[in-house]
């Protein structure tokens, strides 16, 4: 296999990300032998669930981002996978590793079954048809309780989910679940990567861009659209199984329509048609829960609503100033960076890199999150002066659009892709 250098660097980048997730997120000290764990159970569980959402987001992005088919029904696929796993584990005593394949297969089969009628639909019509699945799933699960245990839900605790042998002595259950979820997330990211970069993924994108042209290239449009649905559902099914491993309980109420809609939000905020975007979107969505932790909310009766109202506002701002999500913003930053002087570039990137190293060092030596914060403040101080123009430009571009809109003076709404491409070209010309 010939590794082109960008690909190699990307793999390195992902390895770094994975390392970061394994090492940094749940533990500060790699050895779990009784050393104090800075990011303890709560953070571990949160990170595990983030991994589940990453899986769903990857699958949904393959379908919606790359293939252009909207789905508001992904909780139905997650629930299918989760229930398949839970039933096999709780009622038939299968071990976790053995249920992954059935969970993926059953969910994928449902995806195929949905993909076929979906062929004729597009846009809001497809959105409605898939949302119907998410609406129907809880009812179906409650009604046919012989198999699904109905409203009781299925509690899956016991040997099936614990870490094998000596590993079990080293890590707690939650940490083990985290490693399992992380492993699945990493493997599935690689698979998604391969699918997208390969012939199948190109066919998906071709269909999204022009069905007619895709067909005349020899791409069987209906077949690939159905395959996209099935692949997407397989990702969601595996996510469901991982969910069961982490939470240990699944019920019809575990997933609702709003969560389905949230998945879509996740990938748009992260970046459509971007694997990195799926990951960033899912993780940042999980982090929204934490807004309340650092807001001085008090104990008012409705204090918990405040962060969610803010979240709504944040969503609007993010989508407005980053039309291609976080991944798009990063691409744009890269673009900006590419036309800096090398000295500037070194500082702009070296600063944060140094800062991270400093942060790690300080926190390892001194302990506590204070060290990380100090290190980051230093890092930001170094780089802020250089990032500032870009930040201001990014902000004013959004603001300019906003002001223009208020004045009603904006020109005809162009196709954003080309507009953006021209933006980037003008960047290139400078």
């Amino acid at each position: 296999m010939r590794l082109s250098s960008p690909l190699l660097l990307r793999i390195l980048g992902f390895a770094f990300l994975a390392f970061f997730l394994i090492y940094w997120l749940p533990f500060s000290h790699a050895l779990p032998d009784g050393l104090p764990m800075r990011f303890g159970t709560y953070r571990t569980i949160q990170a595990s669930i983030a991994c589940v959402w990453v899986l769903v987001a990857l699958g949904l992005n393959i379908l919606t981002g790359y293939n252009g088919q909207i789905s508001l029904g992904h909780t139905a696929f997650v629930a299918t996978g989760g229930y398949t796993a839970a039933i096999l584990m709780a009622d038939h005593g299968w071990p976790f590793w053995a249920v992954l394949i059935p969970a993926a297969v059953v969910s994928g089969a449902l995806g195929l079954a949905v993909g076929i009628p979906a062929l004729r639909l597009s846009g809001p019509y497809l959105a409605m048809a898939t949302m119907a699945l998410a609406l129907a799933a809880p009812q179906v699960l409650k009604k046919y309780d012989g198999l699904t245990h109905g409203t009781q839900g299925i509690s899956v605790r016991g040997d099936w989910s614990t870490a094998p042998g000596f590993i079990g002595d080293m890590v707690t259950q939650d940490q083990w679940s985290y490693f399992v979820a992380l492993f699945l997330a990493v493997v599935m990211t690689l698979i998604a990567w391969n699918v997208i970069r390969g012939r199948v993924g190109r066919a998906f994108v071709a269909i999204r861009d022009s069905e007619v042209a895709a067909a005349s290239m020899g791409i069987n449009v209906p077949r690939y659209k159905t395959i996209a649905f099935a692949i997407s559902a397989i990702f969601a099914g595996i996510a469901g199984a991982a969910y069961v491993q982490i939470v240990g309980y699944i019920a019809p109420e575990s997933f609702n329509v709003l969560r389905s809609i949230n998945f879509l939000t996740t990938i748009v905020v992260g970046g459509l048609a971007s694997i990195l975007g799926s990951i960033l979107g899912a993780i940042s969505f999980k982090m929204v829960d934490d807004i309340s932790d650092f807001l001085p909310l008090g104990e008012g009766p409705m204090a918990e609503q405040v962060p969610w109202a803010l979240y709504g506002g944040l969503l609007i701002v993010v989508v407005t100033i980053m039309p291609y999500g976080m991944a798009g913003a990063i691409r744009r930053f890269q673009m900006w960076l590419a036309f800096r002087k090398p000295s500037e570039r070194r500082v702009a990137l070296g600063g944060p890199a140094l800062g991270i190293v400093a942060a790690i060092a300080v926190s390892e030596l001194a302990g506590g999150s204070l060290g990380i914060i100090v290190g980051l403040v230093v890092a930001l101080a170094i780089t802020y002066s250089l990032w500032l123009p870009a930040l201001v430009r990014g902000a004013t571009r959004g603001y300019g659009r906003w002001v223009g809109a208020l004045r009603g003076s904006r020109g005809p709404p162009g196709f954003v892709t080309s507009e953006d491409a021209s933006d980037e070209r003008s960047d290139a010309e400078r």
Partner: protein
Amino acid sequence: MDELLQQVAAGLATGSIYGLLALALVLIYRSTTVINFAQGEMAMFTTFVAWTMLHWGTYWLVFILILLMAGGLGALIERVVIRPVEGAPTLNVIIVTLGLFAIFSNVATIVWGGQPQAFSHYPINDETVKLGAVVLSVHDLAIMLFAALIMIGLYVFFQYTPLGLAMRATAQNATASRLMGIRVGRMLTLGWALSASVGAVAGMFVAPIVLLQPPMMLAVLLYAFAAAVLGGLDSPFGAVVGGLIIGVTESLVGTYTPKEWLGPEMALTVTVFIIILVLVIRPTGIFGKRVLRRV
């Protein structure tokens, strides 16, 4: 037979509620080709405002006022948050409406609390009208009347008034409309304003039934979305008919399917699968226009 008629009437009564909010969705879809997921929450919000105002004024005065205020709110939203993403991919606009959803539902909870409130001061009382075995309340008839009036009004507006034609033109091809001298921005603002007003009517009628509470419009919104899609998103007539079909189907499925494996628990499921079936046969809804693409 009586039972069937009763169930159909019940379905029609519920369905016209869906149809009412579906009309609001269609209005926005027609001017911007976006599904406004905040539609229900906007209606809930204006209904809460109306409820507060009802302590000071008479119902019908408040009703008119709230329609105007809702229109203003819709216009403001279009200008401030929708305009900056105009021209962005459709999904982005949908996400913006989801952001609005979160803002409205949470702000309403913060301001008015989460407890259900009785929507008092409601002048349309619970008197009933008997037509054979079928019993309908004045409230049901009022909803149906409003749904029909708004539907006809919108039809006439879009079909025969210059403003309505301009709005349709805008939705179909903004650039060309602009070249023809249509103030596209104003059309979009107007679309949102109108739609918020229609939504406000729906909110005013839903609140007495399900009690006034922040989540009250969520289910209505989902049903209305289904209704609009079933009818064909660009057709006001389709929206109402779609709503009625869904309402009646749910009633009948809940009553006449075998209880062992379907029954009322599965009414929603069966209904949505019927919708999917209809969509597979007619991919742009019953009354939707088929769009052909030329190469």
